[in-house]
């Protein structure tokens, strides 16, 4: 994948590049947006993300991975759209029509309970949980997208999970 932009990239090269980037990363960006603002608005946010990325492509120096760079843009687009459309936070129930999972139901926490517990978290804690647990990003990548130090991500995750445990395993969380 692209790690740096040649300083003399022509418009055609840039166009080919953004085309390839969109094809490769669209699904991930769409899902990233869907987890934040729901599938109904995810396509709009994803499109805005790539249009913004197209304009900013020249400035991208390859210091982070392309996906992290795109998620950072998508995160801002989702916030902007959520503010504009006054969207309620979306956590887990992004597609209720689909089956719960391939995992055994006994091995996981009830999805509704998990969603309720997520909604009790602060926005900061919820964001970091979504980035790490649902988007599958590392602490460093999450820190880059949120613009905070890695230690902050680690700390927020710790406290978020403490709160989730309190909601979902009240007896264990007393320990």
């Amino acid at each position: 994948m692209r790690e740096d932009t040649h300083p003399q990239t022509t418009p055609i090269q840039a166009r080919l590049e953004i085309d390839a980037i969109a094809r490769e990363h669209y699904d991930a960006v769409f899902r990233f947006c869907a987890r934040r603002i729901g599938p109904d608005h995810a396509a709009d946010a994803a499109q805005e993300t790539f249009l913004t990325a197209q304009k900013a492509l020249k400035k991208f120096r390859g210091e982070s991975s392309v996906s992290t760079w795109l998620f950072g843009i998508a995160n801002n687009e989702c916030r902007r759209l959520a503010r504009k459309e006054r969207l309620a936070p979306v956590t887990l129930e992004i597609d209720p029509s689909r089956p719960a999972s391939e995992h055994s139901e006994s091995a996981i926490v009830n999805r509704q309970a998990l969603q309720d517990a997520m909604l009790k978290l602060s926005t900061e804690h919820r964001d970091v949980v979504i980035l790490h647990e649902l988007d599958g990003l590392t602490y460093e990548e999450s820190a880059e997208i949120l613009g905070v130090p890695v230690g902050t991500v680690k700390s927020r995750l710790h406290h978020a999970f403490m709160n989730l445990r309190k909601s979902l395993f009240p007896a264990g969380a007393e320990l």
Partner: protein
Amino acid sequence: MSYRDDLKAFVDGELNQARTEEIRVAIERDPALATEVSELRHLTSSFQAVPQVEPYGLDETLRALRLAEPRDVSRSPDWRLGWRLGLGLAGAGAFLLMINTLSGPSGFASEVSDMAASSTSAQESVAASTIERAPDQYVAKAERPAANLRSSEDVRAAPPSAAKDPQPPTTRRRNEFTPPRSQANVVSPGAGSTKPTQKDLAPPLRAEPPNAIALLAPPKEQPLEIRVDSLEEAELALATLAAEHDLKLEPVKSTEANQKALVLEVPEDQAEAMMVKLKQLQKTLEETSKRTTASSRAADTKGAGDGMKRGQTPPDDVKPKVESKPGAKLNKTVRKIPIILVTGKPVGPLPEKVGNEAG
């Protein structure tokens, strides 16, 4: 820091070796920590089990990306030029008015007025040719109203074909090119100022409606040969360029397996500008091809996950559009620019259909 603070990072494998080992030992000794770790793992699995939504809208995004920026860039110079032209004409008009006001209907004033009008007409002619950027020797107009006019009275007295033109000279449409008088091969039946020889008129002019544009055969043009690594990628680049400018890119039969022949149909007034862009694209593609040959081969062997891969057929929505845009460029002269994409072996003979034709 207590062990408990690092348990989540431990579960996520985000701790260094030493700290990981430290916590592992602590968990073995403390059942409460072991329970906590178990619950954290339980929660993590629950998140992983959340179903994924099915994405949609990629095609719309790709279209939006294709249409995003270049039009503004291409429009702005013309807009500025038109604005300057308007200012220039307004200035000339004001000058004439001032002369007439100050001097009255004397012979000297009339002479100056005529000179100023000639100058305005000449400026207009030059400006029009700059706007259109069309090669003069290719295009002629059946009747040339505006370039021969010397004053606003003449505009009103212009032949019917000129009067039909809804646009004033300063806002002439892009496809109405008026060549300068000095062009030897311009056909101007209405004006009768120059008479072209028969060899200038190959193929001979058809009987045209009064205001139609007649086409003179352009000189034989060599096809633009672009040597690339991947024919599909180069075709995609050309298709993108064509889509940006609402042009028709048509594949034609090629006699060589390692070639792809295409014809780009460009309105005559955009032909020179487009040739410049094509040359830039040619340079870009050839340089990119040289620069990325090694890395792309490595990427090909790597398999999936690299986005648009070499050798991959571009999806339908990015293939060259064969159909022209609705209502586009009626009565407009079109130049067909032959392009040959070559990969691997040297290029063979020119495909039959590729040549210079006028639409």
